[in-house]
């Protein structure tokens, strides 16, 4: 076991996602409790719980809510960001497939707290089963009178619309997401104004990751003080980690913050595939910097432990990479992705991603020149903090993370035209 659980606290069966079984587990009782509280008290409870956003940036949820002062009569929106596009991340998918009612209940509580009348679930286009499950759960909730009409005798009512994206990475960026809901090309927007001031349809909007929202029910159920007992002081609660790569038991795990990282990989995930040696780990989606086996040895899975090591928990999309993997080709795959997904709005990312992709392609073709490594550094640096959204920075972090630790592999590839790791990855046995 990986510590206490908040979200994955039930047994998954073919029917565990239904309203009946959710109610049998005590579902929608927290909503009743929440409706007896004042909206401001719920916001305070969430702020006190210290819940950090689970979308990747770890921004305190309470502080984001606090910016949006509910004004009576004014329109506010809530969006659940289910556009889970970060490569290696598939934790929200688990919630949407197996606990959709947990999300619906959390969105009801959140909307009550923030004075929201219309909420959206923005789900990525490639998600099929998750879409059917969340749409099914919302349909069930409408039938049960939880949505669309005043809830449980109060005067609060909410409509939830599921909006399917077309599968663009940048739609997962909050402002790109709302632009997409508005029906336009999902170009991220400049800040200021913040989205909590002027967001969807120019109205104050809170956008939270699915997992962040799913935690709200637990926080209100057990209370902030109780919630803080889970996890560590600065990272309260749990993190859903979706692990993939050369690992024996890939999948989604709920890990209590502060759980030892090495133990998680070696015991809970069953170690590396076919006994291969671990080369490095991508901690939380490919936009975080890779960490080597030696670096993760003393670390625990929480923000205060991982951040000083120069990386981050990010979105919890962990990828285990076995010894023998060619890091040059790995970076090629990443840069191809970033090039393909750059929205093309602002200059550094639009031109930089393609440039980096062409450089790495050339290196893999055996036509690299020694200056290429410095050029990759320079492009990454020129993308750091200069773009409208965080995508340029993310690509830069990933590139610099790999270059810093595996520069020798790049130099070898440029010098010899061959990979240092050719043909030695044999973990498929």
């Amino acid at each position: 076991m990986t510590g206490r659980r908040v979200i994955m606290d039930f047994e998954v069966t073919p029917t565990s996602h239904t309203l009946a079984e959710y109610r049998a587990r005590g579902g929608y009782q927290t909503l009743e409790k929440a409706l007896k509280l004042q909206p401001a008290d719920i916001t305070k409870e969430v702020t006190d719980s210290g819940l950090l956003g689970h979308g990747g940036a770890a921004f305190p949820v309470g502080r984001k809510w606090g910016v949006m002062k509910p004004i009576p009569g004014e329109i506010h929106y809530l969006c659940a960001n289910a556009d889970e596009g970060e490569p290696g991340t598939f934790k929200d998918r688990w919630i949407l497939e197996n606990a959709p009612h947990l999300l619906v209940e959390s969105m009801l509580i959140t909307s009550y707290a923030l004075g929201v009348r219309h909420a959206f679930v923005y789900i990525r286009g490639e998600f099929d089963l998750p879409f059917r499950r969340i749409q099914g759960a919302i349909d069930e909730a409408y039938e049960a009178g939880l949505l669309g009409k005043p809830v449980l005798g109060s005067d609060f009512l909410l409509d939830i619309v599921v909006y399917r994206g077309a599968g663009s990475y940048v739609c997962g960026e909050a402002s790109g997401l709302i632009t997409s809901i508005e029906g336009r090309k999902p170009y991220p927007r400049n800040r200021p104004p913040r989205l909590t001031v002027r967001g969807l349809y120019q109205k104050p909007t809170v956008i939270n990751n699915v997992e962040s929202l799913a935690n709200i029910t637990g926080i209100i159920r057990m209370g902030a003080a109780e919630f803080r007992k889970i996890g560590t002081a600065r990272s309260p609660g749990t993190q859903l980690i979706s692990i993939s790569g050369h690992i024996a038991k890939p999948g989604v795990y709920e890990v209590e913050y502060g759980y030892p990282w090495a133990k998680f990989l070696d015991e809970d995930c069953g170690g590396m595939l076919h006994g291969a040696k671990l080369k490095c780990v991508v901690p939380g989606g490919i936009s975080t910097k890779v960490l080597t086996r030696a670096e993760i040895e003393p670390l625990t899975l929480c923000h205060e432990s991982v951040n000083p090591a120069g990386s981050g928990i990010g979105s919890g999309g962990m990828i285990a990479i076995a010894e023998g993997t060619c890091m040059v080709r790995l970076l090629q795959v990443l840069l191809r992705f970033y090039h393909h997904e750059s929205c093309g709005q602002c200059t550094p990312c639009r031109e930089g991603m393609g440039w980096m992709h062409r450089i790495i392609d050339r290196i893999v073709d055996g036509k690299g020149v020694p200056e290429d490594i410095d050029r990759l550094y320079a492009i990454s640096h020129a993308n750091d903090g200069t773009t409208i959204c965080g995508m340029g920075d993310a690509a830069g972090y990933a590139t610099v993370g790999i270059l810093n630790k595996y520069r020798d592999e790049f130099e070898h590839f440029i010098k010899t035209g061959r990979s240092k790791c050719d043909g030695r990855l044999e973990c498929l046995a």
Partner: protein
Amino acid sequence: MPRLTIDGREIEARKGQTVMEAARDNGIFIPYFCWHPQLSVPGNCRICVVGVAEKDGGEWVEIACNMPVSEGMVVFTNSEKVKARRKATMQFITLNHPVDCGICDKAGECTLQDYHYEYNGERSVSIDAKQHATKHHDLSARIVLDNERCIQCTRCVRFTREISKSCGLGMQNRADHSLVRAVEDGSFEKDAYSDNVIDICPVGALLSRDFLHRARVWYLKPTPSVCPGCSRGCTVNLWHRRPEWRLRSPGMQAQNQGIDRVTPLENPAVNGPWICNKGRDLAKLLGRARAEVAMLKGRTAELQGAVAQARALIAGAKKPVAAVSSWASNEELAAFKAALGARFTAFVKADHAPEPGEVVEDDLLIRADKNPNTAGARALFGDAPPDIPKDADVVLVWGEGLDFGVIPAAAKIVYLNAWLQPENGHADVFIPLSVQTERDGTYTNFAGVTSAFSKCFPKAKGVADAEALFPLLAHGGRE
């Protein structure tokens, strides 16, 4: 009123302004590609970065176009950090730019060229081949797009959404495959203001088909003028060959005397920075076949003879009537009023009416009255209806647009016009006039704003200037 410091100069900004606006208002230059004073702020070119001093002594670099001013802010437009950022951005922007300035119509007035010398000035650091894109794409019948030169600032896209409201352009694809394309419903083709995107394009991506490879801009000279296309009276620049660069080869003489292109002359009181497509086509309107020979009942005559004949007719008339041109300048109208106003019963006629297919009127600039100086003419001659009494014995018709059928058969016709038209031969006396590009003058638009136009070309031989002609018609120039 927040006070802030830009480059050591303390300035006062208006609340809600951005750093870019505050700097411009105070004459401090910050470079920009995508920003435009009349359009929304997309913040996508990233060239307008400025540094802002932080409390701990550091410097925070952000784009000026989207940065609200705040009290006590200290901004640097030229610090080392800002210069490095700008240089990196210029390297990105020119990464896939073909640098084909030698064959680019924009060369010489291109923002990218200027900024390259100012903020980068180095060869490309990339050794990879440049990305190719469509080199010649017909965006509409009027506009050619070179996607390789495009820097995706989206000014043109925003123009069609925010100013002309045709929503005719959009961005296709992602990343460095992004392309500006017209939407499929043809709304850009119908956009009556589409050519403005050529002016606001900071590079040579959007090109006028009319002006394509016609002239290098440094061989041309802009002369301020007023568009006679409608009663808005937009101020324009007429670009024509500089005399010192005139073409000498045979067959090219017409181009020395022609308008090569028309661009808006920014004028907040009338048209802002825009003009409509009809204004762009002034060369066609003003370049129609000219009448350059005087005629008496269809037979060519000397100008002096025709003037004498007209004077005799007017002197002997019992009931002379004049149809005054609404294309005449205020000066010409005043000359007519002074010389012949007492003698004639005058009314103002419309020289031009909306043509089939033309946008008659809209909310932005285009007015239904297709004459530039109706307001000026009516101020002098009143707004009596264009009605010729049955007993008129001499009718002076000034300018086009009057059907001779409405003139009593017994009346003698004195016709003053600049263009070659069938009516010229039907008049008893025909005197050719100069056109707008051959003289100075002013027009008064529908709102009462008077704008001046200047002479571009010498007057054609054999034509009269209306301003000098009227005193001759009145009393032969003898006082």
